[in-house]
């Protein structure tokens, strides 16, 4: 069975690209439009990995990571955050919240796949 990856991003084009790339790589994808939406979906859907943006309305990426780690089903899954280079402090904050790693925006599809492969094994 294909592994399920959630992408949480308020940018439809980024979601589209991430989804497209992951599906090409043989993964199933669940999309969430912001942190709140993601957390809601996580409570009912089992995912193997989470890729989240940091800046999102309603609930940002840090809040989502904290919330996800508090869920039993997401305690040990890899969580990768999308950051920009200017957000080094956010990277630390994200890690403290329980993020596994990060992808610096902008990124190319193959970079995304490399990170997914790296953390998901």
């Amino acid at each position: 069975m294909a592994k399920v990856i959630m992408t949480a991003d308020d940018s439809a084009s980024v979601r589209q690209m991430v989804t497209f790339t992951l599906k090409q790589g043989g993964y199933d994808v669940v999309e969430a439009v912001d942190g709140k939406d993601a957390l809601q979906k996580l409570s009912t859907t089992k995912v193997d990995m989470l890729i989240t943006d940091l800046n999102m309305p309603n609930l940002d990426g840090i809040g989502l990571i904290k919330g996800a780690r508090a869920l039993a089903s997401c305690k040990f899954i890899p969580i990768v955050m999308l950051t920009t280079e200017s957000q080094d402090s956010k990277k630390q904050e994200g890690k403290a919240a329980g993020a596994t790693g990060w992808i610096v925006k902008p990124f190319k599809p193959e970079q995304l796949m490399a990170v997914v492969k790296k953390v998901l094994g």
Partner: protein
Amino acid sequence: MMDLHRQAFKEEAYELLAELESSLLELEERPDDQDLIGRVFRAMHTIKGSGSMFGFDDIASFTHEVETVFDMVRNGKLSVTSRLVNLTLAARDQIRAMLDAADSGAEADLQASAAIIVGLRELAGFGGGVAETDERHEEALVQQKDPVTYRIRFVPPRDIFVTGTNPLNLLAEMKELGTCTVVAQTDGFPPLEEMDPEGCYVYWDVILTTDQGENAVRDIFIFVEDDCELKIDVVAEHSRYDEQQDYKKLGEILLERGDITPQEMKEVLSRQRRFGELAVAEGILPEGKVQSALAEQKHVKEVRQEKQVADASSSIRVPAERLDLLVNLVGEMVTVQARLSQTAAQRDDAELMAIAEEVERLTAELRDSALNIRMLPIGSTFSKFKRLVRDLSAELGKQIEMTTEGAETELDKTVIEKLNDPLVHLIRNSIDHGIELPEVREAAGKPARGTVHLAAVHSGDSVLITIADDGAGLDKEAIRTKGIERGIIPANAELSEKELFCLIFAPGFSTAKTVSSVSGRGVGMDVVKRAIENLRGSIDITSVRGQGTRITVKIPLTLAIIESLLVKIGDDSFMMPLALVDECVELTREDVARSHGRNLAHVREHLVPYIPLRRHFKISGAPPEIEQIVITQVDGMRVGFVVDHVIGEHQTVIKSLGRAYKDTEGISGATILGDGSVALILDIPQLVQAVETEQN
């Protein structure tokens, strides 16, 4: 694919810009509204991030500037003024203009961008001037060529699992880098009752030999290097083996690692037992540490041995002429060997026979390996053409499938290389001029999808490469008109079909009405023909209007040794390529009489046409009572050749005929038999064709 994403981004960006505008207008009313400031920042941030991801670099770098200023607003370092709102609105309009410009391919007004940035920077208080855009780091990572062995100690933080990191994945990644020995260290385990089941108590010693360099190793740990203990040391550089004669002793390794002090080592060494055992027995070292060091010792030893084996079996480059010479000599040798075998058989000398057999075996091996050095299957070239067909059909809006046959057919490497360009051109022609657009095909009652068939087959001392399409076929009238127009043929010329088709090889000849991007690049069929002729090959076209065109390229191997069937007619010997031979049957005088002068033989209830070679080659003398028919398969058709006797299978060294005989029909080469006499090699396909033409 990228276009789709770009389009999605643009739609989204327009939406975001609309939202940005209304947020900014509201912000002017309520300059302290943090929520609004957040919305403006997020909109900008998304446009920047996605913009550069989808190739809108100008938009990204411009928006970056605006975002930087708004980040200050967000952090309370800058307050919202009407000047800021004005500038930001101007920036918003500028982004929109850039988006619009991206569609039409026009350049957005760079000066306007610069003016806005200067204004914003002044406002933010960090000087004027247009900011330089972030420079992307060049990934100029030079690959290290020589393998290096690293000793890596990776001690993950106890809580590594709660960040979703699986250390086993990291170890697996290291295994992908090269030869890897992993030793798990378990001396950190607490008593069971104190153990946190979610904690990680194991750490790892890894000995890794890789040619990817230390950075590649560090990259594996990129997400965890801040939190874990990671030590990477170079154990051995394998390019400098010669300088490192000895393997490191166990004690030295432990000492280097800092796992033991020199005093401790000295103490232990003073007792004459195996050092590792002693150290563990003495409780100076946990078992795992010794195991790890031993593993390193073993690893380095193995890698070094592998390297030595690899060094020994590495390839060498040799000039092609030397190989030609070798192959020529082997050819001579095969001939001499045949003679030796024949002589030995005649002498009836057991000892000589034994020697001859030995020489025969060795020669066969020598022949195979000498030839193998230069022969490559044509398949890799074929698969390249698949891509060509795919791209071209997409470009021209045609549906084309490419089928191949005989990809395993081996050809001399240099021949394959030189064949590439002519074949590319021929395939292009088939696709561009031959295969019709799907609608046209359907209207003509053909499947919408056209086929280009590419086939290679050995034929005597040649390889036949066929490019056949099921397209429109050649338009004889158009060719004739064009030929007269160009003054290549006189207006009243009576040309056979074959002669007409040959006209397309004339320089500057093209029947295409318009010059497309595919053909008409100034490279004509004349260039193809010259390239083939330079390989001493020939090119042949058959075409049926509305049904397709078949182009056959015949390329001789300069020298090849093939399995063939030796036959005799009178005193003359002939060779027939065994690959084409199906079976041999007898032909009696009664059979001939029964078929009433038609050259047809009954073979298991099937009629097989045959060619009486004695008559065909006008060899004098009477045929024997019972003749033999060698039945061959050419283009899926069974055709027999009547000969006097079938002698048997033979290894044939092909010698090409001299220039004077190069146009001889039906003969593709010659060989020297064991008794020194010459046998001609029959060009079966050409013979079949010649007889067909004769009958027509």
